[in-house]
């Protein structure tokens, strides 16, 4: 991996949407955008909806978690790659299996009963919070980071 090559994994339960495609795609800017999500990768209707959202001039694709794991290693990361996953559990699964992430963050996690609000767009249940602790135990600093130009927010895990 060259010095400027980076692979960021983002937890975002809105999947591919404006913040990802415009905010990170154009603002970071990403050289590739990927969605690693078994649910979408295996559903033809969802694929039809989400595939066109990856801008042609950026490129990327939609893959299962297993495909993501076999696609990248330290040496195959070229440029600035953004990989979106749907939830903290998927992120933990990737990291546990040595996914070569340079950094990881939570972008959006919707509100719901019993969830704690951390920022207006990030709400975490107790089990999501436990998963985040496990991610931290793997040696990753996981922060809330909505957009490239907004300040990351630390998730207090102690």
């Amino acid at each position, binding site marked *: 991996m060259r010095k400027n090559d980076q692979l960021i994994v983002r937890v975002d339960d809105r999947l591919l*949407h*404006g913040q990802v495609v415009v905010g990170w795609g154009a603002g970071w800017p990403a050289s590739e955008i990927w969605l690693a999500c078994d649910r979408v990768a295996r559903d033809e209707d969802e694929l039809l909806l989400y595939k066109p959202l990856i801008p042609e001039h950026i490129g990327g694709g939609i893959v299962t978690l297993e495909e993501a794991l076999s696609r990248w290693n330290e040496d195959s990361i070229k440029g600035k790659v953004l990989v979106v996953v749907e939830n903290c559990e998927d992120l933990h699964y990737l990291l546990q299996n040595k996914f070569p992430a340079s950094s990881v963050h939570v972008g959006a996690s*919707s509100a719901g009963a019993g969830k704690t609000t951390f920022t207006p767009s990030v709400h975490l249940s107790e089990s999501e919070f436990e998963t985040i602790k496990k991610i931290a135990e793997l040696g990753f600093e996981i922060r809330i980071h909505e957009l490239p130009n907004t300040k990351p927010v630390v998730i207090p895990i102690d």
Partner: protein
Amino acid sequence: MIRGLVVTHGDIAESLVVSLSHFLGEVEELFFLSSDGYSAKELSEKIESLVSNHNAIIFTDLPGAAPTTRARSILKTNQCVISGVNMGMLISFAMKRNTLSQDELVELLVNDAKRSVEMFCLNS
């Protein structure tokens, strides 16, 4: 009657519907929804609950963003999505929805909305 549902980021949907009522008085069967705070899955369910069993047109702000993507994911044959909602589009919807078939109406709304984009500049 064809139901209308405006789904956007932030408060745009609500503001559009409220502002429309300033022109036309309260418009029947026209609802609004903000996509803020919903996951992809939840937003689909919410939209579906507002249009299920209705002939409906769902108006969204941006193609490719969550409101449009999720509205498209729950469409039935008697429903459709138009992105790029603006006041011109909604005024036409309120005034013409009882005079045309749904297919004709959708085409007309897209054209009316496009026509409402005009440029006025002073030559320097």
